[in-house]
């Protein structure tokens, strides 16, 4: 046997490296027509952005390694992602503008973030597929469905700025956008059919004496208050002028009702993060609660039955998008626009779609989804094969139907969006009293 010297090892390594490089190069032949010449035009641009690193902040929902890796591979830029809670995300967006280049946040955060002046307006004309974005966002239209009348911080309300430098929202569509949407969903109550024993059809059931000590509500004021409003209204305990923008009297009244329910022991717990809600549900501590769609799929992935109930009063929706930091300019800004265009191009939409989120441009996502996947997630048809999430877990068996049905049925029946109200400070104060009471 030959002795492996260091020199030997080096030489072999170099040879192997050279061979690899050669084959790699051979696999990517230069574009036809430009044999020795790097392509002019857009190619120059992409070559330049290769050294750019974009720092993202966002919630755990979309700050996912697979998305980062694919973006880095396709665009050649580097992404640095930070997964935060909804609250931390807003805090950093508002108070630490130098810590991020791209803000991945929710529409209801915008009334807080935009006045800080930390975001720059997005030039809509540079977004290739802007016209294909679901009109809920761009025009507040959706074939006349109830969602057009939905209350709260609906995306269209905070989608546009009157001009590039403005810190106030425009009342109609302009060329300057705040966020470019890429994921959204219709939220509702989740329950354990094995422990509940019947079908849940109304938000009012959350306060049903039958479930005393077995329910939960989420403890993020802007979202929790909307779920609470849906419940209180459905239970005919009170009515609102506008659920999405309550008056002080309405806030007082609803927190009094919530405190009373808490005193009666209606709630088992409150949750703040996605994982907490999954733990509560899968351990059987709670059998009916406000939930987010991936939390339901996470419970199902553990082999536990869980229904994301379509309720007769309608859904509470949320929307997330990408905003650009004021600090971005030059090549970095170009790279960020490249990212947005890539994000709308369909791969991300399909990836998130396999977890139950909707894409801003469904027709693009469709290109990257198999026909059975598209039929199940968007059309509300029975699964013609097992539905597998992007991480390889089987979510639904063949024959299952998505809770709530098709895209149009679910998003069309949205009646409220997560909200930041005029009385936000007062709401947070009263909400804290409810939690602490």
């Amino acid at each position: 046997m030959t002795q492996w010297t260091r020199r030997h090892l080096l030489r072999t390594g170099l040879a192997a490296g050279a061979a690899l490089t050669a084959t790699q190069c051979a696999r990517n032949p230069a574009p036809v027509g430009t044999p020795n010449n790097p392509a002019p035009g857009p190619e120059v641009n992409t070559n330049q952005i290769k050294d750019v690193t974009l720092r993202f902040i966002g919630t755990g929902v979309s700050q996912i390694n697979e998305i980062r890796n694919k973006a880095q591979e396709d665009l050649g830029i580097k992404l640095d992602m930070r997964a935060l809670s909804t609250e931390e995300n807003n805090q950093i967006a508002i108070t630490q503008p130098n810590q991020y280049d791209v803000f991945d946040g929710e529409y209801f955060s915008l009334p807080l973030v935009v006045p800080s002046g930390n975001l720059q307006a997005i030039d809509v004309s540079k977004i290739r597929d802007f016209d294909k974005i679901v009109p809920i966002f761009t025009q507040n239209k959706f074939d006349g469905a109830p969602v057009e009348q939905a209350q709260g911080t609906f995306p269209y309300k905070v989608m546009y700025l009157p001009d590039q430098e403005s810190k106030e929202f425009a009342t109609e569509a302009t060329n300057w956008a705040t966020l470019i949407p890429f994921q959204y969903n219709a939220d509702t109550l989740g329950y354990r059919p094995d422990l509940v024993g019947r079908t849940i059809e109304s938000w009012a059931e959350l306060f049903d004496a039958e479930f005393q000590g077995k329910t939960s509500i989420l403890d993020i004021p802007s979202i929790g208050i909307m779920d609470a409003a849906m419940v209180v209204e459905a239970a005919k305990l009170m009515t609102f002028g506008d659920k999405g923008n309550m008056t002080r009297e309405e806030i007082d009244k609803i927190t009094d009702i919530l405190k009373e329910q808490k005193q009666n022991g209606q709630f088992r717990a409150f949750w703040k993060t996605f994982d907490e809600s999954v733990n509560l549900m899968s351990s059987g501590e709670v059998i009916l609660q406000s939930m987010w769609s991936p939390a339901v799929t996470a419970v199902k992935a553990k082999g536990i039955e869980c229904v994301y109930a379509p309720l007769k009063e309608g859904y509470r929706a949320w929307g997330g998008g990408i905003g650009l930091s004021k600090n971005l300019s030059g090549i970095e800004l170009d790279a960020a626009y490249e990212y947005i265009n890539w994000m709308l191009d369909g791969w991300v939409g399909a990836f998130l779609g396999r977890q139950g989120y909707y894409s801003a441009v469904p027709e693009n996502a469709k290109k990257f989804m198999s026909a059975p996947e598209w039929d199940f997630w968007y059309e509300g048809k029975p699964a013609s094969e097992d539905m597998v999430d992007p991480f390889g877990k089987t979510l639904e068996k063949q024959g299952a139907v998505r809770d709530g049905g098709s895209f149009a049925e679910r998003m069309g029946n949205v009646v409220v969006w997560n909200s930041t109200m005029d009385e936000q400070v007062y709401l947070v104060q009263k909400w804290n009293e409810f939690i602490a009471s």
Partner: protein
Amino acid sequence: MHSTWKSLKPYVLVTPQTLVLLMFLVFPILMIGVVSFWQFNGYSMVPAFSFENYKGIFTSEVSVRTYLNTFKYVFLVWCFCLAIAFPVAYFLAFHIKNDRLQIILFLICTVPFWTSNIIRMISWIPVLGKEGLINQFLLATGLVQQPVEWLLYSDFAIVLGMVHLYNFFMIAPIFNSLMRIDRNLITAALDMGASGFQVLKEVILPLAAPGIAIGSIFVVTLVMGEYITVRLMGGGQAASVGKLISTQIGSLQYPLAAANAVILLLVTLVLVMAILRVVDIRKEL
């Protein structure tokens, strides 16, 4: 020349530490104090000099109740920690003669710190939950017909979690002072005809007092600022000052949170001073 250096030397030596303390302790606390007088307009802080935040705290029934609730936790956790830590430390110090075994057993007391706080908290769910170990046992033996609900997401769970978490901070200082007790004192007491209980009461307890005091300071200050255990073990339903502050920070209400932090700091300092009043740590160390 030589004499000036001699008089200056202590000041020069103390400068680096002073600067570090000023920059990383005194300055941030002063900033918190300043911000607590500012105002908040929904998304940002506005410099001002207003007593609104303090007025809000002292006139709100909820914050008063929250402080009382926190004191309740402090008292309960302190009692249980002391009740558990003293016998444990006593056993380690006086009954384990083998040095190596003593060290091993002492290290075993640190086991709760081998994983993160949050994982430890979550691990309680399968033990205390409705479908948890204890309830399964109780149901199987027919002791109860319905699962016992107050085991988890209750004050009981919060106190249990905190005792589990902070007991070691009580054990370590008590163990330390027990180890310093001159064994001849005990022999002398026994020779003079003292009973075992009298030795404990007249000799060991007074000499262990500094350890108990230091342990109490640890436990009291830690529990006063506690929020993650309160949130996870209380199922988000129980209130403590720390949790109140964290919720306020979460909703960007920094001035209000700062005012609460200032009050919490003052209250905690008063408690620590009260402990130091009872036991002169410096004299007995």
